[in-house]
């Protein structure tokens, strides 16, 4: 059989889901457009960061502040969470038991929270070393970029909890399904942003 056309970014539910799949096209496209706008937002913050690299004003710079090991762990956590969210999407698409779906979602949430924990720990150790945002243009730019991603992850986490709530309350109706699919896009998108942060801020900052 020929492969069905992909209607929108992210995992497609496929015809087996009937009207839910029909409804997905518009909603997912809308969300994808939003993500593109968000991508520009991040891009501008990146640009600010790059143009502020030398604006340390005599304060601490990347080498003094970044803890690459911790950041590496964060990266691993986030990558893993992208994968587990993928498993949740598959569980949704192939109509496995609800428990399995929720299970994968919870695992994702735990990974996300762990990521945030490490990140906050990083920030606090930067603070201890004098790396506070009001110290210099460079640090301001840093604390714009990285926490902005962190805030997105936090929002994703809250959204995830709400979706689990909706699954429990309403089961897998159209709205819940589309919610999960959009969150999946969001989560994978944040992963991409993180790769940029990991490479541009941390790896390049330490070369």
């Amino acid at each position, binding site marked *: 059989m020929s492969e069905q056309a992909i209607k929108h970014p992210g995992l497609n539910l496929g015809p087996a889901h009937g009207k839910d799949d029909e409804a997905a096209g*518009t909603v997912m496209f*809308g969300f994808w457009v939003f993500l593109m*706008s*968000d991508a520009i937002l991040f891009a501008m913050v990146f640009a600010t960061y790059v143009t502020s690299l030398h604006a340390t004003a005599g304060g601490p710079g990347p080498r003094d502040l970044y803890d690459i090991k911790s950041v590496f762990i964060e990266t691993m956590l986030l990558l893993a969470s992208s994968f587990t969210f993928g498993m949740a999407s598959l569980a949704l698409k192939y109509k496995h038991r609800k428990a399995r779906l929720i299970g994968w979602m919870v695992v994702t949430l735990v990974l996300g929270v762990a990521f945030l924990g490490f990140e906050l720990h990083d920030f606090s150790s930067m603070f201890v070393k004098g790396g506070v945002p009001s110290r210099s*243009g460079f640090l301001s730019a840093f604390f*714009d970029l990285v926490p902005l991603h962190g805030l997105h992850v936090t929002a994703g986490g809250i959204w995830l909890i*709400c979706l689990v709530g*909706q699954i429990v309350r309403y089961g897998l109706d159209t709205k819940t399904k589309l919610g999960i699919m959009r969150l999946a896009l969001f989560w994978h998108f944040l992963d991409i942003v993180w790769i940029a942060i990991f490479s541009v801020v941390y790896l390049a900052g330490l070369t």
Partner: protein
Amino acid sequence: MNIVDPPLGRLQWSSLPFWDMLQHPTKGNIINGLIATGAASLVVIGAIALVVLLTKYKLWRPLWSNWLTSPDHKKIGIMYVVIALVMLARALIEAVLMRGQQAFGLGGGFLSPEHFAQLFSTHGTIMIFFMAMPFLTGVINYVMPMQIGARDVSFPVLNSISLGLTAAGAALVMVSLVIGKFSTGGWFGYPPYTEANFSPGVGPDYWIWALSLAGLGSTLTGINFAVTIYKERAPGMQWMRMPLFTWTALCTAIIMIFAMPPLTVATAQLALDRYLGFHYFTNALGGNMMNFANLFWLFGHPEVYILILPAFGVYSETISTFSGKALFGYRSLVMATMAIALLSFTVWLHHFFTMGQNANINAVFGIASMLIGIPTGVKIYDWMWTMFRGRVRFTVPMVYALGFIVLFVLGGMSGILLANPTIDYQVHNTVFLVAHFHNVAVPGVLFGMLSAYHFWFPKAFGFRLNERWGMISALCWIFGFVGAFFPLYALGIMGLPRRTVAYTEARYVPLEWMAFLGALLILVALLALLWQLWLSIRDRADNRVFVGDPWAGRSLEWANSAPPPEYNFAVIPQIESRDAFTAAKEQGRAYLRPDTYVDIELPKNSAMGPAIAAISFALAFGLVWHIWWLVILCFLAAIASMIIRGFARDTRRIVSAQQVRQEHHRWIDAVDQATAISRADECTSVNVGLARQEADGVVP
């Protein structure tokens, strides 16, 4: 940050506009205090009067359930335009005050420098963000879904939320008249002037949060429009069959989506500087104000094309309709629109040629700016070819369109002059620049919106506007504009900087007076417009056009009754060509009764829009005044409302086939009874909205 004490943050008695006048009653303080207090009282009295009237006539409930909570794109569109008009009234008064001050400005004048600075800052901010943007968003909201044969936009509740955000931002600007003072940093609020150490008051905070709310609203609107045009087109409405106004709406939406983020970043960073002592744009500690200029204009330049493109769309519709002819060069016009949208992202540096970057950069961006003249020129020529071998009727929308072409070509030419870094080095930041942008914003954007207002008003309200007073107003506009702004070109070349409250150079005076008189003529134009509205409402019974097609329209928004049913079309039309409605009329399928009707599903009313408006307004107000408990409370409320909305089910309702049939038959009956009229009579009361087709080559 202390979140409990004091409970009202920075808010104090001295925040009221008459405080200074009472404490230090000097002559200047009294004049400025009286003007400020007068303006504040107008806002307060207006608000109180509104509340009283609504209560007296028991209109709260209808207002709430028919308007504020309505997800209907047509009602949302009208509410946008209402916001635009209210804000415009204020910005206009400010404009005339500024022109008056400058006419008397030799060595002084009557306004204090600070007051003048607030005037240009609020005027600019309002005109761009709370007049032009809501106006065009409203018009697009009203017209575009019908032009593509849709029942509504893709996300109706989101649409209502966007409206709420815009309204909250507008309200914040209005409140700044009464409590505290608005920014004095101009509409682009360059730091470090707007940083905490140079502007410690609440002004820049008002500006930041008003822009943030409006910007967020516009981003969401842009997404909504773009998705609607991509996904909701009626069957057969291929890309190359879309009306040109819809094309411009699409390109505007795309610019909104991609141009707002830099603004969000710039204002958010400025806020962090001001609230938490970051160093993005400060002089000291590695801050770099040039980043702000760069970010702001990355948004600011595309923004001016957000404003102009829908106006171009309007002119395309009116010129073709009132020339009785298909739009010439449709494909070129579409390509030109897309070209402008893309090019608008490549020229932002022309707003700071004088910042000091190297000549290569200046030359590249200068040439890129000129490139925009190419697609714009194509548009102008194609409109002219549309009139060529047409039958041009001088109705009010058409007079605006003609005034537009003449004046906009001049304004565009002054833009091209500015795009020469060599010339810009001489006229940047002078009133030459002020003349340029009014020369494109007024004949371009404002005339476009006025043209749209006269064109689509009968569709929205079911009766035509008074033609005679419309014409008087239009002519006053055109000549008033020439008088008010052409002298500024000369003044700018004579070295008068913009934002100047007073001057000592006597040679400026005659030209300043010309400009003032021009502005007064514009004021007359506005009064004529209001008078026209009043007359039209009074005589509405004579001017009804229930049948819905008063101007021999060409696109689908004319293919239903005026005003249209809430679901727009009883049966979704099937499109077979460009100018879909004209084609349907020619083939005799414009007014048919279908055999069967089906149930129509519509979104239920939702309180999300007004709720978000209230919450975001209170949030922003708390931020401005450092009332932290309010900020936290509203922040939580915002999140809670979104979560609750996530849990909402049962959000749709059904209009029964029965009802649809009834309403549709009522309309078709009216069509059957109406007599079709020729275009010679379109401005008389025999026009009930049924147009006779005028055929090829034959002139009756």
